[in-house]
């Protein structure tokens, strides 16, 4: 079922085919699983002419739930495909009579899927920032703020999952569990100090 949906989506992004680590092809971006067989040129600005009676088909746009499992490089590749698609659609709009597209909802679909990519990136940014703040606040000993941040991190951890946050920031991933403040330990120490006094 999932594969059928994917094939529908790949119709939007022309030329890009979703394959899970298949045989290596001509162009593979480093660190991504998306393979593109088309040779790129300035001709990509122009769409081919459709015969009379047929019209360009398009599937649905990418949603945030589709993109959450993807790595940074995959998202980067998808973004570039969407840019190419949008440039092509805009030139088609310019070339056509009365500046009308045949399937005008395609532009909206591209915009929505670009927005979905930004949503996913924003979640990862929020996680990394809140992890950084947790370290700072736990050093200061601000317990109220630490509790808020830990709740926020719990919420974001479910969304982001086990994806690397950013290239070059793998150190932060290891800190997710180690940064937790042991409140039991602190209370035990306090009670020991009180007994001595």
């Amino acid at each position, binding site marked *: 079922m999932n594969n059928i949906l994917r094939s529908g989506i790949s119709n939007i992004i022309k030329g890009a085919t979703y394959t899970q680590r298949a045989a290596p092809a001509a162009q593979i971006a480093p660190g991504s699983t998306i393979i593109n067989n088309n040779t790129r040129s300035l001709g990509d600005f*122009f769409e081919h002419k459709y015969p009379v009676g047929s019209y360009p088909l398009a599937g649905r746009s990418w949603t945030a739930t589709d993109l959450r499992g993807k790595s940074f490089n995959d998202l980067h590749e998808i973004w570039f495909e969407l840019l190419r698609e949008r440039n092509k659609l805009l030139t088609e709009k310019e070339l056509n009579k009365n500046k009308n597209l045949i399937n005008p909802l395609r532009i909206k679909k591209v915009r929505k899927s670009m927005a979905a990519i930004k949503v996913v990136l924003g979640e990862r940014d929020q996680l990394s920032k809140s992890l950084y703040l947790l370290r700072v606040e736990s050093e200061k000993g601000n317990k109220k703020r630490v509790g808020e941040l830990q709740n926020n991190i719990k919420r974001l951890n479910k969304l982001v999952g086990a994806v690397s946050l950013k290239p070059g920031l793998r150190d932060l991933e290891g800190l997710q569990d180690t940064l937790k403040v042991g409140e039991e330990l602190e209370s035990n120490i306090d009670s020991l100090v009180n007994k001595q006094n």
Partner: protein
Amino acid sequence: MANILNKPALGTRLMNSVFFPNIKLQVIRNTGKTFEKNNKLMFKTDCSVGKTDIKTYVKALYDVNVDKVNTINVQGRIKSCIKGFGKKGTRLNVKYKTTDYKKAIITVDPSLKAPLSRKKSTK
């Protein structure tokens, strides 16, 4: 080498502008036909886009080395609202302005000469 953990904001914002640029390039009418003669393509873009931006953008997306970029800022036209339709329409004193844009002309190596118009479908 600075510690990345101490600068979380720096990492995120720079990444987004580098890996996720948001630039529109729209080919202006009839420039695809004259591309065979003079190796020049004309685009419409935002006013905030620079020459080096266009160079790197075209290289990244279309695998084409750009030799030269010329740009012109074009002011939007001032138009007046029209009430009614056809011959009955009367111009009102209310005026509005269309959006400004930047024309960008790129020149490409003569080895890349190719007809850049709509191809016929293979079906």
